């Protein structure tokens, strides 16, 4: 059983209204030293068997990310980590 994490973020030049809204709210929580916030999606995929990197890339490209405005990175995670004690192990498989 393999677990893969696909992180999808807006390309750097694309406006990120979500991140901006959070960044603007932080000073009200007394936090003023944040220079930028970007918000994307984290997608956890669990395979019944092994995860074929090519197939994962295809899923990410076709279904999870919108290549017009988003980039994605793929990591295989050692252990299903549903609970809080997650330790992401980067598989270094950037898009």
């Amino acid at each position, binding site marked *: 059983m393999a677990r893969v994490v696909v992180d999808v973020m*807006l*390309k*750097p*030049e*694309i*406006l*990120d*209204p979500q991140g*901006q*809204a959070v960044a*603007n709210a932080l000073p009200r929580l007394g936090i003023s030293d944040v220079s930028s916030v970007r918000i994307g999606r984290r997608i956890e995929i669990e395979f019944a068997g092994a995860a074929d990197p090519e197939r994962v890339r295809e899923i990410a490209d076709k279904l999870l990310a*919108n290549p*017009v*405005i988003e980039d994605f990175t793929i990591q295989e995670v050692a252990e299903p980590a549903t609970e809080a004690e997650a330790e992401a192990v980067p598989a270094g498989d950037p898009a």
Partner: protein
Amino acid sequence: MTTQSDTASSEADEASLPAQVSYDNLDGPDTVERAGATSDELQPFAELGLRDDEYERIRGILDRRPTQSELAMYSIMWSEHCSYKSSKVHLRQFSEKAPPNDRMLAGIGENAGVIQITDELAVTFKVESHNHPSFVEPYQGAATGVGGIVRDILAMGARPIAVMDPLRFGAADHEDTARVLPGVVAGIGGYGNSLGLPNVGGEVVFDPTYQGNPLVNALCLGVLPVNRLQKKDAAGPGNIVVLMGAKTGRDGIGGVSVLASATFDDGSEARRPAVQVGDPFTEKLLIEACLELYDANLVVGIQDLGGAGLTCALTETAASAGTGMRVWLERVPLREQSMDPHEILASESQERMLLIVKPEQLDEVLAVADKWGVLATAIGEVTPSEVSGLPGRLRITWRDHLVVDVPPASLVDDGPVYARPMREPSDLILLQADRAETLPRPANPDDLRATLLRMIASPNLCDKSWVTEQFDRYVLGNTVLAQPEDAGVIRIDEESGLGVALSVDGNGRYTRLDPYNGAKLALAESYRNVAVSGAKPVAVTNCLNFGSPEDPAVMWQFAEAVRGLADGCLELGIPVTGGNVSFYNQTGAAAIHPTPVVGVLGVIDNVADRVPIGFAQPATGDGDLIFLLGE
């Protein structure tokens, strides 16, 4: 001269561009001084969509070659989209044939037409296209289409109060439709719902002609007290130019990125034109801030930033007043610090407005912006006309380098105007010969039943609530009629019950068969829809969706449709108050069906008298009588 590849070249295959001068290793930006000294330097004007003679005209106007920033500005302002260079000669009929009208406070040429409906109140409405961006990125394309038309209405001094969305997609079961339609609908809802604008009608039409080129048109209605009408004039030398709203990023810079570098090496990848992403929250704040500024009389002139960004707003406000302008471009708040001057001038970042304000009121203006949490920055000032008596010049510096020095009107009013060749499509006679009368008709009850079932099952006739349920139609509490009614009816005045009715209609298939009558039919349908709601039609807006104007057959369709619409308006006695032309709607050489979409606005003295569709439930005894009017 049957085809001209010039205006389409901004969409040309980048890899095939000829080598041009590279500005990459310049020490600082390309300045006016440098342009004067290197007047023979080769420039990538063709890649920016300018023809040889257009480029020569620019050199003539400036008496030197344009700087990199100026070239970007001319290429944008003289593009089909901004200059209406192919449509202008035809659109004139809307004014020439317009019936006399003393209620039109603003008409064609303004951001949107304004019609006075009582001594105190006026309404404004306009429909615009966002077809190409919606095919590339359906959600954001449609969303920013709504955002753009709302800012047009806002710029007139009006509070936006409703939207409509005439949409056309390819075949319902085609995979492109499956990709595009859900995103478009979600985008229109996502933006309009977040602004709190009720969606009171639209169209959803499926036809294979729109397969590679869906049509996403958006209409906005606004209301204003007559004395709050705004102008775009940058009047009053010494007044301050304020940019309000979102930061400027590399959104939708399009062909202008050609200027960054002539060679498309790996490094230029990041400079590719980026899709515009909408931020409806910022737009909502922008609306509230603008309205508060209008009500406090703090605005001398205002213009929204649309397709041509700062370039358009700066030149139009100055040209409209005949003044000059001095702009310090480095004051523009940027999302990416590495942006070059020409990129800042060409950026299509959304949710921005340009304001002209009096220096002694600047602090008040900034305070209102701050109250609503909107960025507002003084970026320049209005300057007088030249000592020679000529209109003022637009001078823009970038960190002390003069990068633009142009007569603003040369970008706005002196663009090229073409009487493009026109020819009736060669297949038209055949199409027209194939009459509907020759089609088999259902001859018995079974056939009739089968035909009826087929019609009911057609995606074009079926229930549209899957779409309309994604739109808020209740917000603002004044929606008297909305889908599935023939027209949307909005109450304007709670005391008197005064309201307006709106409908948008078009039929590409009719127009393909007969552009003149097809356009008239679209007008008639929209007019009828408004009339049957109980309102008196008073004004027309339109969005003319056509193929490439360089195709004589398309140009003929366009000319005929405009002639038909203008004649129809004359016959019905109502004026066209504004609209939008969208050319180049085609896939390869195949143009879409010519699709004029016509919006009609009517006034109803008391919305309690509106007439809904459907038979009313008889309150007492006798049922209502049914009449069929017409032939």
